[in-house]
């Protein structure tokens, strides 16, 4: 019978051992993610109830060992030592048992009750590996449960073993013996037993680690007993004497002991029937990693990801958008009605917030598909191959093979989002490359930059459309690589680096549950983290654009204008038999609002069927007024309809004028104006400045702001492109201006959501500030060079684009090929002895 009602279980194991699937198998969907205190490592925990016992399970970071060389290792070790879980479930990859045993030994050495989940038994069987479970159990002295996490096999047995292990009084677990060193270690162990360290730390583990010269163990002793403690001195003496006697480093000897033990266990428990034959993964690799075929497969994979997520996902947003539009309509319905000229603040602000949120939520289908595909790449094992193929290229610029995924997510091919991109840098083990990746992912073209590019390209580069788009989507990659190189050679120079030694795991078919869960989880993280911030910022931007507002005299003027229009309206409808309905202004306003609402609803639907259904709905809801919306053959109603249309369009244009004036006199507008003397070097006028400033909240808003600022002629139903074109050609805005603006926009700092994510991933406000200031400066300088340089050389936009492009490409190639940096042959250490 279980003695405890609550158990804490730590799930530990090496990377690619199937820890996550085992975790899912044990806990089901009941899990949540948090961070370990003070670090950016995810702490995943979940609970399940089994035989009346509540078992809290913590999925520890996957590490190859329990030393203290990486953050993940330190986190795992600290958790084991400070939280003291009741049971550690060690997930072991049955298909490479020997290597997994190194880790198992370290867990056993810490001295906690251990149960081994021998995972991926199916892969092992397929590869012709047979494992004698009984004998392995006997050798290790702990329960060994064969499992197939992906199929949920062995779930009950593993849960049974957890309870049994927790309730076992006496452990008879394997003790790793260090042969010749054993007497010395035991002596040190006895000595440590008498100190206060024995209360907190497993003494055997501590003495083994001290003899091995582990820096973390030494730190613990120094902290608790002081630097001059006899125990520390003793461990150093043991090491010294052993090395003098055996002519080899103690650490190497201990590794050898463990290796011999692991070999002996594997030798007695494992029989290989297909040894020597190439397994399936190797056959696939022979094709996929072939020197000539590899780039083709890589490009094809990336192309498929792009097609499915960005292109197809974008198609899906057409079906998804009506739901968001409906949500907006519902909110609009709840809020106080619109006024004739000015809306109540609560209405305009709430709708502004909804619009900002919708702009982001619109991308949900894209993200779901993108994250699902990424999860498939990760689970299948191909992601590690991508790193293998591209590491050389990235390394030349101070990045890492594993920077590939963040860049893909960030939108290498015109379309992505820097937020998940920055999130995905978590997996990069090398601190310097990781920071460089975080700081360069935002240069990729996120989905929200696209509408702005499209707008400018359609106005200024109609004949060169595809060339300019190609320019924009590739220049960002070159610039990102150059910036990465610059940063790693300067501000990031002193950051910790890590070796690129990585397992290429066997290919596994991904599971539907695992992929779906990860896709939803990441999308949800995006919505949660980004959504809340964007809404908060949108309120600030709204305020900055709204206040102090237009002067009283201007207000008076617009008031008169609208009154004139109302009088005109009344005159027009005089002859209609319905004229008495529209005597007071409230009734008129109501009618105009209803008309606008109906027209907007019409715009959001497609097809004759939906249109009919909409009409029916309005007929039911407004039986008396519907006749004015759709007069059909009623002549009198037609008069009203026409007059309402005229009034509402007059009202629309007046409102737009007010808005423009408002923005011009707003706080943000005055900042944009005051920056004009500086930004003129890059060719930006105050309108562009305002668009750039407001786009910091979310890129999408730049097009909306431009839409308000370039609005003359909106009444004639001209598109924004035409309006901008007309106004701009008068104002001397040339393709060169447009080029400078687009390049600035490509290099411009990440949106607020991304900077928040940068803060989360780097854990520092300093880097967050850097991520904003550096690209601003860079973007401005480059834009100024393009604009002023183009003017000085008398080049037009497209010529300047070509000049700039060639320059950047050459610079990138030269930088990438220069071997002076980072490729130095490492110094051979004398320590390892002679040949």
């Amino acid at each position, binding site marked *: 019978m279980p003695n405890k009602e609550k158990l804490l279980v730590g799930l530990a194991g090496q990377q690619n051992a199937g820890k996550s699937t085992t975790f899912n198998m044990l806990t089901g969907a009941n899990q949540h993610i948090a961070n370990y205190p003070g670090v950016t490592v995810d702490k995943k925990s979940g609970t399940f109830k089994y035989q009346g016992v509540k078992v809290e399970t913590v999925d520890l970071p996957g590490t*190859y060992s329990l030393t203290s060389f990486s953050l993940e290792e330190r986190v795992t070790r600290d958790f084991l030592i400070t939280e003291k879980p009741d049971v550690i479930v060690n997930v072991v990859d049955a298909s490479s048992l020997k290597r997994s045993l190194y880790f198992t030994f370290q867990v056993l050495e810490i001295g906690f009750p251990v149960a081994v989940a021998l995972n991926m038994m199916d892969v092992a069987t397929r590869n012709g590996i047979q494992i004698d479970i009984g004998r392995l159990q006997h050798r290790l002295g702990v329960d060994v449960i064969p499992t197939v996490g992906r199929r949920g096999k062995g779930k009950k047995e593993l849960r049974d073993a957890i309870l049994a292990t927790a309730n076992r009084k006496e452990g008879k677990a394997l003790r790793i013996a260090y042969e010749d060193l054993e007497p010395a270690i035991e002596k040190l162990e006895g000595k440590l037993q008498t100190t206060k360290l024995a209360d907190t730390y497993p003494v055997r583990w501590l003495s083994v680690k001290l003899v091995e010269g582990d820096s973390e163990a030494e730190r613990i002793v120094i902290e608790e007993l002081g630097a001059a403690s006899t125990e520390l001195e003793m461990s150093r003496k043991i090491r010294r004497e052993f090395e003098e006697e055996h002519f080899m480093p103690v650490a*190497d000897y201990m590794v050898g002991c463990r290796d011999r033990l692991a070999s002996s266990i594997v030798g007695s428990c494992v029989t290989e029937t297909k040894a020597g034959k190439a397994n399936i993964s190797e056959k696939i690799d022979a094709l996929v990693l072939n020197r000539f075929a590899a780039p083709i497969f890589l490009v094809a994979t990336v192309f498929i990801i792009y097609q499915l997520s960005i292109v197809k996902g974008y198609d899906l947003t057409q079906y998804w958008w009506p739901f968001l539009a409906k949500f907006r309509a519902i909110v609009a319905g709840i809020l106080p009605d619109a006024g004739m000229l000015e809306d109540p603040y609560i209405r305009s602000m709430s709708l502004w917030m909804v619009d900002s949120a919708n702009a982001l939520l619109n991308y949900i289908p894209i993200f779901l598909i993108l994250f699902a595909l990424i999860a498939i790449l990760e689970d299948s094992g191909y992601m590690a191959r991508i790193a293998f193929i591209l590491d050389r290229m990235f390394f030349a610029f101070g990045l890492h093979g594993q920077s590939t995924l963040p860049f893909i997510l960030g939108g290498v091919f015109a379309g992505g989002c820097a937020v998940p991109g920055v999130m995905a840098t978590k997996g990069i083990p090398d601190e310097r490359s990781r920071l460089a990746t975080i700081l360069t992912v935002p240069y990729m073209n996120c989905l929200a930059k696209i509408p702005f590019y499209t707008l400018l390209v359609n106005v200024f580069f109609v004949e060169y459309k595809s060339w300019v788009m190609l320019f924009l989507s590739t220049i960002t990659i070159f610039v990102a690589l150059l910036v990465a190189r610059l940063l790693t050679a300067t501000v990031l120079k002193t950051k910790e680096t890590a070796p690129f030694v990585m397992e290429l795991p066997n290919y596994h078919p991904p599971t539907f549950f695992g992929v779906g869960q990860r896709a939803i989880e990441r999308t949800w993280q995006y919505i949660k983290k980004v959504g809340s911030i964007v809404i908060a910022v949108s309120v600030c931007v709204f305020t900055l654009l709204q206040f102090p507002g237009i002067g009283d005299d201007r207000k008076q003027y617009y008031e008169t204008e609208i009154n004139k229009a109302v009088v005109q309206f009344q005159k027009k409808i005089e002859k209609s038999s319905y004229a008495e309905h529209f005597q007071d202004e409230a009734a008129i306003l109501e009618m105009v609002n209803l008309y606008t609402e109906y027209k907007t609803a019409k715009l959001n639907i497609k097809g004759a069927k939906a249109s009919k259904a909409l009409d029916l709905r309005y007929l039911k809801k407004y039986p008396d007024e519907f006749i004015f919306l759709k007069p059909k053959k009623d002549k009198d109603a037609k008069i009203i309809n026409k007059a309402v249309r005229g009034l509402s369009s007059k009202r629309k244009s007046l409102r737009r004028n007010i808005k423009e004036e408002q923005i011009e006199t707003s706080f943000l507008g005055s900042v944009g104006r005051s920056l004009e003397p500086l930004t003129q070097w890059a060719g930006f006028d105050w309108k562009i400045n305002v668009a750039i400033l407001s786009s910091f909240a979310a890129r999408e808003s730049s097009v909306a702001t431009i839409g308000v600022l370039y609005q003359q002629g909106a009444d004639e139903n001209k598109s924004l492109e035409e309006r901008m074109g007309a106004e701009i050609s008068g104002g001397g805005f040339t393709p060169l201006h447009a080029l400078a603006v687009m390049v600035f926009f490509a290099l411009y700092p990440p949106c607020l959501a991304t900077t928040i994510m940068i803060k989360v991933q780097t854990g520092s406000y300093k880097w967050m500030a850097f991520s904003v200031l550096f690209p601003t400066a860079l973007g401005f300088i480059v834009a100024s060079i393009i604009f002023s340089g183009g003017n000085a050389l008398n080049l037009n936009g497209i010529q300047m684009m070509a000049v700039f492009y060639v320059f950047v490409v050459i610079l990138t190639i030269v930088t990438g090929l220069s071997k002076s940096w980072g490729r130095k*042959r490492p110094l051979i250490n004398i320590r390892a002895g002679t040949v």
Partner: protein
Amino acid sequence: MRRRKRRKQCRMLGDCRPGQQAKIRCHHAEGAIRQRLLDLGFVPGTRIDMIRNAPLGDPIQCKVSGYNVTLRRSEAELIELENE
């Protein structure tokens, strides 16, 4: 094993060509690199198969006790092999 491959012995893993086999003698690396190599099974005395170079020549792929590991040449140049 074909004779042609046997002819040229290499002292460091970084000098090996695809298809060659060798035994690890010792590591010249220290700290994190050494630990990582040991964790992944690059234990002195272990047989190692050099499988292939990446398309751009670096990193390399090796097979050690039954699984595949990739490492950069700069790290492979720290692994000394036994003369047979």
